């Protein structure tokens, strides 16, 4: 859908007020109990094993997502042969676009990767794009890998956008995180390109999607019920429930908490699932029956029982600058973080260590870079917005 049509999933007033009060209380309490920042489960039900997680809430099928994206791009074909796909972090666009250039999936597009050195002059950037073969259909899975927030790190994207505007960039697909897109919209206000974005996951859609993920392993999907009230979470559709069975508002609240972002919702969903200690029920789970009550089943902990990661209050301005830089660039190593935040090497190391302990960032072995965690994203975005940072529109 076009970016202008994107709307944040709604939640109940009760839930909004409760969330705001919890957030304020969390910030006030952080000064008293600074160690309680990482993810924590506040109930005593057994969590799912890795095997059960893969059964109930497996990761997305990026090949399928790539095909759906391609179909959607063709359906919304604009005048310009280069299409921009803008999405909030953890939407899965990056990995799906990578699949398009993967040999095992037909390699329908040529993958364009950034140079090692991103600090280029305008002339060097021109030469680099001249040397790139843009005659065949190409794909850039993540545009934010092509720049650095430094006065010498802007030229590659500037030159690309110039070529796209002039129609000299061939046929391409560009994935871009919403934070990076927001920066460039302000930096080059005259560069107006029609961008597409995935629709937000609101409650019902989220329910179908989570059930769809699980049905890759269990043909008939799964049954999930609230561990406190017994209300039904999955199946989400009311017509699949028997008379007298009531749906919980969990999916609606989850959609609002995750801001409709599939990756964030899935991460919270995985943390909320609880094992069912009832052996008799497990035996019934194995039966192949389409009735909800006899599908593989698990419990869902209420969102109040999940203490998601929160921003450390005492860590100072450096933490916010680091997190904002990571969101702008998707992922960065320590040297580049130093360059874009203006912090010294030891400051970056100390801040990253603190943020890692709070479950807000994670080190990615592949590429040796730091990234924001999906569980920490809602708290990070809320804090950056409160601190006056420019935030994405999603």
């Amino acid at each position, binding site marked *: 859908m076009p970016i202008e049509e994107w709307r944040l999933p709604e939640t109940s007033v009760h839930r909004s007020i409760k969330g705001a009060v919890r957030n304020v209380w969390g910030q*006030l309490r952080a*000064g008293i109990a600074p160690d309680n920042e990482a993810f924590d489960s506040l109930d005593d039900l057994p969590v799912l094993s890795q095997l059960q997680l893969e059964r109930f809430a497996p990761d997305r099928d990026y090949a399928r997502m790539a095909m759906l994206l391609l179909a959607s791009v063709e359906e919304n074909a604009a005048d310009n042969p280069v299409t921009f796909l803008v999405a909030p972090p953890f939407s899965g666009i990056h990995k799906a676009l990578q699949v398009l250039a993967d040999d095992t999936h037909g390699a329908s597009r040529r993958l364009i990767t950034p140079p090692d050195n991103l600090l280029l002059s305008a002339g060097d950037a021109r030469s680099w794009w001249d040397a790139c073969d843009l005659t065949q259909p190409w794909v850039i899975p993540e545009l934010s890998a092509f720049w650095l927030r*430094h006065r010498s790190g802007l030229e590659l994207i500037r030159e690309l956008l110039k070529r796209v505007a002039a129609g000299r960039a061939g046929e391409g697909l560009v994935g871009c995180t919403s934070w990076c897109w927001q920066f460039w919209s302000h*930096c080059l206000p005259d560069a107006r390109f029609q961008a597409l974005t995935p629709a937000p996951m609101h409650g019902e859609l989220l329910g179908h999607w989570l059930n769809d993920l699980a049905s890759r392993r269990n043909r008939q999907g799964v049954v999930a019920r609230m561990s406190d009230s017994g209300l039904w979470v999955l199946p989400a559709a009311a017509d699949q429930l028997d008379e007298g069975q009531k749906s919980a508002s969990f999916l609606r609240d989850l959609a609002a908490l995750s801001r409709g972002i599939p990756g964030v919702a899935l991460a919270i969903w995985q943390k909320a699932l609880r094992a069912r200690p009832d052996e008799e029920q497990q035996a019934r789970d194995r039966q192949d029956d389409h009735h909800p009550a006899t599908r593989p089943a698990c419990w869902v902990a209420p969102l109040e029982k999940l203490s998601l990661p929160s921003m450390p209050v005492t860590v100072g301005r450096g933490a916010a*600058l680091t997190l904002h830089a990571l969101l702008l660039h998707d992922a960065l190593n320590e040297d580049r973080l130093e360059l874009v935040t203006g912090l010294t090497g030891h400051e970056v190391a100390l801040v990253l260590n603190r943020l890692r302990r709070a479950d807000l960032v994670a080190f990615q072995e592949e590429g040796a870079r730091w990234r924001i965690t999906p569980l920490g994203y809602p708290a990070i975005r809320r804090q950056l917005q409160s601190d006056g940072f420019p935030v994405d529109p999603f």
Partner: protein
Amino acid sequence: MGDLGLSAAFSDITVDALLEALFLVVLASAVIMVVQNLVPRVAHQLGGKARLYLLASVPLVRLLVIIVTIVLVVPVLVEPSFENMIAIFGALALALGFAFKDYANSLIAGIVTLYEMPYRPGDWIDVNGKYGEVKSIGTRSAEIVTPDDDVVIIPHSTLWTALIANGNDGSDNLMCVTEFHAEPHHDVRAILDTLRDVAFTSPLVKTQQPVRVSVQNKPYGMQYKIKAYPLDPRDQFRFKTDLTMRGSEALAAEGVRLVSVPVATV
């Protein structure tokens, strides 16, 4: 009428009534003290816009408590008849007019401050050459803290005569101007673009607010000005330092030298 009718107005005051009034005044003072100490602490813990809103609410809450206290105390001491009110306020006006003219002037200006809000806690203001952040607004005066950590007491009566410049006016948008004085004979357009990039790539800039770079021809060379907004008004000095540092580096990389001593115009 020699005593303006005050003796008649206060003739029915009993010890119990005095104690009750005293209790109300002490209670109100305690509430004001708690609000003035607690709310700023909570505000600093929260940060962001919530901080500004909470700080701005302190003087309003104080005004509310004062009004409620007066409304409660006066009927305890005197019967609130028309004659009694005339007598009390007449005597007060006389006393204030002669003995505490300047003090009353500041008190009244303080009430006008609460109504017109030329400055609120959290604002960055310049009054008579003193620049700083408003920390608190008292009954008679406001306290600002300068960048050098000096506390300056500004009587509210200054409001009547002085020019008050408010940098952010209750919002979190405060424009900073960073100047560069460069030697002439260079590509001005290229330097304008470079300085704009310097501002946009500062980690402390609000990119959602305008970033402007201007240039003026001066007798000693070119004067460039970057006008941009820091993330938070409290970041202004760090922001200007960052722009100055990285702007100077960028100018040096472009082969443009800064003038060391501007030549005074005759």
